[in-house]
């Protein structure tokens, strides 16, 4: 029997201060994981993969590639050669750390800000440009055939991840699904429903929350009163964990552990990766309307690429010329892809009819024919960019 617990005492006036006969029936803790501090120095022992220089360099390169892609995409958008684009500036560790933990046979279900992870998974730069350039062929993914395309309706892919994972579980495959969602997405009912399904069925699914602290103009403090996003897992009886999302080693370690548990039958995991959105929400957004630069600038010190670089340098794993050639590699890969993208002719407009059904119904075929007839009337198709 207890009294004066938070329920009975605070907040608000205390009137009925009788000795309520309560007992504690459940306790929970939320942990935070960090492997590198802001200066790139190890905090405690590092996970095994961090002994492997190649593994670290691969992640470093992936983050740099993502950021290079990002800058190019923004500049193409500014000059009218790409559609509205969501930059991932400063959040590369969440995406890259997550995807680096996965096996190729796993399935990645990204939100619209996980370019880095998609690249790690084998989506090509050209595919990414095509997608953001408004071309469905950007979702064809010659590489990861089972990965999902970007999900635009926030959080709506969370239940898909549970279904993918359930299929794997029913077939007894040692695979898992990994969905990335934003902090804003954690307010959505479909995400919660997915989490609850994942909990009760112990499906091999990992939810990674890219907590970049903003949902467009809404800071995470106005998104939810829960002190951490990790604790939302408690509602579904799932293990939740918070990681430093600017620490790519920590992100990868957490997701790897989650995947390992999931493959071993341990069920779902929910990992909040705390990072920061350094740029605008998208190219259509002007963040200066709702947040001061002064709020943003301190976070530049924490950004994940510099942190890993400091770590690599500290460990003598990255020389100046390594870095220069890596940067140059990324730059030329991105330039080449951008050029290939821009040289790609648009799809045949008739393609809009051809992928709704495995077998087109007669009705739709007729509409296709009617459209084809109007096409031939037009002398030259209007410019598409």
């Amino acid at each position, binding site marked *: 029997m207890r009294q004066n617990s938070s329920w009975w005492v605070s907040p608000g006036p205390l009137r009925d201060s009788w000795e309520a006969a309560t007992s504690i029936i459940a306790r929970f803790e939320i942990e935070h994981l960090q492997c590198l501090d802001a200066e790139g120095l190890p905090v405690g022992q590092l996970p095994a993969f961090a002994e492997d220089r190649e593994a670290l360099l691969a992640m470093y390169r992936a983050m740099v590639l993502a950021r290079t892609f990002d800058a190019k995409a923004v500049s193409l958008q500014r000059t009218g050669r790409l559609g509205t684009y969501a930059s991932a500036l400063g959040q590369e560790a969440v995406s890259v750390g997550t995807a680096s933990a996965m096996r190729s046979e796993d399935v990645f279900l990204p939100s619209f800000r996980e370019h880095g992870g998609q690249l790690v998974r084998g989506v090509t730069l050209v595919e990414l440009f095509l997608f953001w350039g408004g071309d469905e062929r950007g979702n*064809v993914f010659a590489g990861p055939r089972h990965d999902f395309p970007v999900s635009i309706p926030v959080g709506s892919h969370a239940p898909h991840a*549970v279904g993918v994972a359930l299929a794997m579980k029913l077939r007894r495959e040692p695979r898992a699904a990994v969905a990335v969602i934003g902090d804003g997405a954690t307010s959505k009912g479909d995400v919660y429903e*997915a989490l*609850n*399904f994942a909990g009760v069925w112990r499906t091999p699914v990992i939810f990674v929350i890219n907590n970049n602290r903003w949902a467009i103009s809404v800071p995470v403090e106005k998104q939810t009163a829960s002190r951490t996003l990790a604790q939302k897992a408690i509602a579904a009886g799932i293990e939740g964990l918070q990681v430093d999302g600017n620490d790519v080693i920590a992100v990868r370690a957490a997701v790897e552990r989650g995947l390992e548990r999931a493959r071993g039958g341990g069920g779902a995991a929910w990992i909040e990766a705390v990072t920061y959105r350094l740029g605008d929400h998208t190219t259509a957004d002007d963040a200066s309307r709702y947040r001061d630069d002064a709020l943003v600038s301190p976070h530049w010190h924490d950004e994940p690429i510099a942190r890993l670089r400091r770590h690599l340098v500290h460990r003598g794993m990255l020389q100046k010329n390594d870095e220069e050639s890596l940067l140059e590699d990324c730059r030329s890969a991105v330039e080449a892809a951008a050029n290939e993208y821009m040289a790609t002719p648009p799809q045949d407009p008739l393609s809009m009819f051809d992928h709704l059904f495995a077998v087109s119904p007669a009705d739709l075929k007729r509409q296709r024919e009617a459209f084809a007839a109007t096409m031939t009337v037009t002398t030259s198709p209007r410019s598409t960019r």
Partner: protein
Amino acid sequence: MSELSLVQAVNAALRRAMIDDSHVIVLGEDVAVDGGVFRATDGLLREFGTERVIDTPLAEAGIVGLSIGLAAQGMRPVAEIQFTGFMYTCMDQLLNHASRLRNRTRGRLNCPLVVRSPCGGGIRAVEHHSESPEAMFAHVPGLRVVIPSSAARAYGLLLAAIRDADPVVFLEPTRLYRAARDEIVDDGTSLPLDKAFNLRSGTDATLIAWGALVHESLAVAAELASEGISVEVIDVATLKPLDTETILASVAKTGRCVIVHEAPLTAGFGAEIAARLAEEGLSSLLAPIVRVAGYDTVMPLPRLEHHYLPDTRRIAAAVRRVLAYR
């Protein structure tokens, strides 16, 4: 061969599909242990086990959403939404994802999903248990929409829906679950998903209906036959894709058309059929089209429900009206 009610036919088709294809799994609220609140999934748990017949938590959007994930991974989920009134929360998943996954990925991923749900009124149920939202689903590119009106058609169409490579919304009129019965050979024969059923041929007027009201329409045709009036009755069980040919051919013959549905009139699927006639069959029309539909009101609670539902009286009056027009 045995006589089955519509709900038994659904059950038989599910069972048949599960025997034929191990990827078919059934999931939904109360579908496993309880066998479904209407018993549509009765016995499946015993026969196919807990990995293929799955009781879900109470979350319709999630059920459809995770079924999309299952389908994208090559499974063939058949999800039950306990009543169509609880399908509106699934609209987002159906419209934004199920119907679009194939197109979005140019065929790389696809979504062979069936969402079954009991629809329609006339069972004196509480609110939200009598909905007819077929027009909303029919408006969604990439979805197929089916409403069987007989046990035999339920069997054949459900099998086709489950075997189809794309998402199908399969609405089952609760009013017919036990009332509609047929002799059915459970041999796995499916019916095409794009053909309307000409149930009674006639020369004076065409009655177009689907779902439970097919029966009222047939009754009216029979009634009028005794007066020497010959009414053709078409069951548009596969609403989408719509079989315009069968409809146009019939109206070309009769020149007069009454469209019957239970859903509210405005923007109901009857409008689409009328529009196609006004576009492609205008010259056949000897009289204005008449729609006999639910009113643009909320279906009343059971005590007044029968006043809302189109009945043989209203249908017969409409047929007489189109016949009287000169």
